[in-house]
């Protein structure tokens, strides 16, 4: 296992000078994933923050080959690249240096949970040897903080604004990691930047398996979350400690919990650090916080059960 120190010493495959915001989780997640790959890669990105910030012509932050096609089709695009590689390799048309490659697709929650959902599901079912990484910042941040199906309940976004009648987003986020796991692919994981070693270990596993792998990583967006940029990593720890964002992996259908907080923190610890939830602390919205807490508790218990960590009843 590569240590964090070794990873930090390695050459960056996503170079500095890109235009991601300060405190943005997507850049951190991408660098860690890229540095966990042992092969030259073909990287795809769905339209979104990562794509627009790293490839403004005539510049590119990518040391590997990179392709952006459109918003909803990064999985299909990388599946085509992977099929091309398989075909040319089989026909003996590749140079030796090109025989071992990693195929990586990056998408935000918009490009993954919503508009790119079908393309992703299709690619997973077809079994392409590729790693799909979702940097989940819980809204369409690139276009200015609109709700997605990954936006947590109660969050104020520009299309689910906290109003006089409606206190932000009314629906719970969908559990994309579970949905991907239901495809029965070899490797699925949920990870977080506050545990870089865990994230790197998961990325390495994802690269190692034969067939599709999916990693869903919580990625702070200080602009959209109305959080402090210097707290971007810390806040992802709070997400795990409150059990809002559990860390787990699913290997060939086997669920494993990777992080159990010493003491499960109340969801308010997570909510109060972010301006997008500020309105929930008004007395009239108290019920929202209670509902969110109940939902998190229920979800956490389900995860514990799936991972064989539930206490005997």
């Amino acid at each position, binding site marked *: 296992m590569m240590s964090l120190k070794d990873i930090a010493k390695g050459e960056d495959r996503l170079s500095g000078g890109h235009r991601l915001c300060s405190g943005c989780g997507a850049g951190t997640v991408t660098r860690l994933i890229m540095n966990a790959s042992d092969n*030259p890669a*073909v990287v*795809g990105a769905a339209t979104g923050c990562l*794509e*627009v910030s790293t*490839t*403004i*012509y*005539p*510049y*590119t932050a*990518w*040391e*590997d*080959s*990179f*392709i*952006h*096609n*459109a918003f*909803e*089709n990064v*999985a*299909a*695009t*990388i*599946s*085509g*690249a992977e*099929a*091309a*590689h*398989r*075909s*040319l390799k*089989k*026909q003996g*048309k*590749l*140079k030796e*240096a*090109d025989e071992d*490659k990693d195929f990586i697709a990056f998408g935000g929650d918009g490009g993954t949970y919503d508009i790119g959902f*079908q*393309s992703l*599901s*299709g*690619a997973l*079912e*077809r079994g392409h040897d590729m790693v799909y990484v979702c940097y989940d910042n819980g809204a369409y941040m690139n276009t200015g903080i609109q709700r997605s199906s990954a936006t947590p309940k109660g969050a104020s976004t520009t299309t689910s604004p906290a109003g006089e009648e409606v206190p932000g987003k009314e629906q719970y986020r969908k559990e994309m990691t579970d949905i991907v796991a239901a495809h029965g692919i070899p490797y699925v994981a949920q990870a977080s930047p506050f545990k870089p070693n865990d994230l790197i270990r998961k990325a390495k596993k994802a690269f190692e398996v034969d067939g599709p792998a999916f990693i869903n990583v919580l990625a702070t967006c200080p602009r959209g979350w109305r959080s402090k940029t210097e707290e971007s990593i810390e806040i992802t720890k709070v997400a795990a400690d409150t059990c809002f964002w559990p860390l787990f992996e699913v290997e060939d259908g086997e669920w494993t919990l990777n992080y159990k907080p010493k003491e499960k923190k109340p969801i308010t610890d997570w909510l109060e650090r972010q301006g997008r939830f500020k309105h929930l602390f008004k007395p009239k919205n108290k019920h929202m916080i209670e509902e969110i807490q109940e939902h998190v508790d229920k979800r956490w218990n389900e995860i514990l059960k799936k991972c064989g960590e539930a206490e005997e009843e």
Partner: protein
Amino acid sequence: MSEQVALTGNEVMSQAMRQINPDVVAAYPITPQTAIVQTFSQFVNDGDVDTEFVPTESEHSAMSATVGASASGARAMTATAANGLALMWEVLYIASGTRLPIVMPVVNRALSGPINIHCDHSDAMGARDSGWIQLYAENAQEAYDNAIQAVKISENKDVMLPTMVNMDGFIISHAVENLNLLADEDVQDFVGEYHAENPLLDSENPVTVGPLDLQDFYFEHKMQQAVAAENVKDVVLEVAEEYEELSGREYGLFEEYKLDDAEVAVVALGSTTGTAKTAVDNLRENGVKAGLSKIRLYRPFPAEEIAEALADLEAVAVMDRAETFSTTGGPVFADVRAALYDMGADVEAVNYIYGLGGRDLKVEEIESVYKDLEEIVETNTVEDRVQHLGVRE
């Protein structure tokens, strides 16, 4: 070496694809294209081709995967029709804007709604400005020949644009025709090996494809694409010449049928041109100086050449198998009329929209178009510039 066979248009198109032996085919079935994908899947699973087949969950993903494969350095193909082409729309522009030489048979079918599975050109005509080269065929032989030539046209370094190989749904795709197939090795020699200039798979020379291209460069890149489109005509003719040497079959930008001394003529594309030839022959027997211009290369549009071929006519009728709802006529009409205007040609041009949703167009109906033209010449007046032919009103 070639072989005489009796096959449907779809069968012969799958044979063309087998002989081209692309590295990747990503496709989704849709009527009336389905048989192409089915037959080709059989070739893949029988080991008759080296192709990796990617059976996507939609046409949008089919075109997206084809783009990914082509950008990676593979010779990549797909095939579609109608709503499938409509679903690809967004990525069509990305394929051409990224300068990927993808070849795609399009089995022309009416776009919904209402839903209809039969032939018209609303699918391909809607995509006429997507930056793809468009070739049209009168019959299955031409569709086959166009598919093989398309590979060479698209991959030409001065072009590097994708091509739609159009073939009328059912009329060509499902009818059995007597035709000639080239030998496999002749097709392989003709298309040659594909060597991409900057493939994603070249680890020593990593490349960023599809970057964000803003005010300072986007326009220049579109200009380069426009220049590539300008180059297409010459390349189509070069490839046609080379293909004629191989097959003995002659191709151009368009075909002139008894046009030399014609006074009235029809301009059309697709399978209707076969029917129109019969009408021309019948009328010629009765002393009418009728002719036909059959467009093969519709995009980019060979305006000057077509206008020149039509310039000495008295009147011309342009046939469109697609509505634009502009109330000023169909797409081919707009192009032909503009070309005549630029030429300063004194030719009356009228438009007939026909055959929507697979409505059959009979020889007599085309003959009636020529009769209308004769009347226009005689009276020197055009009563209806744009008419709908063969419809109950």
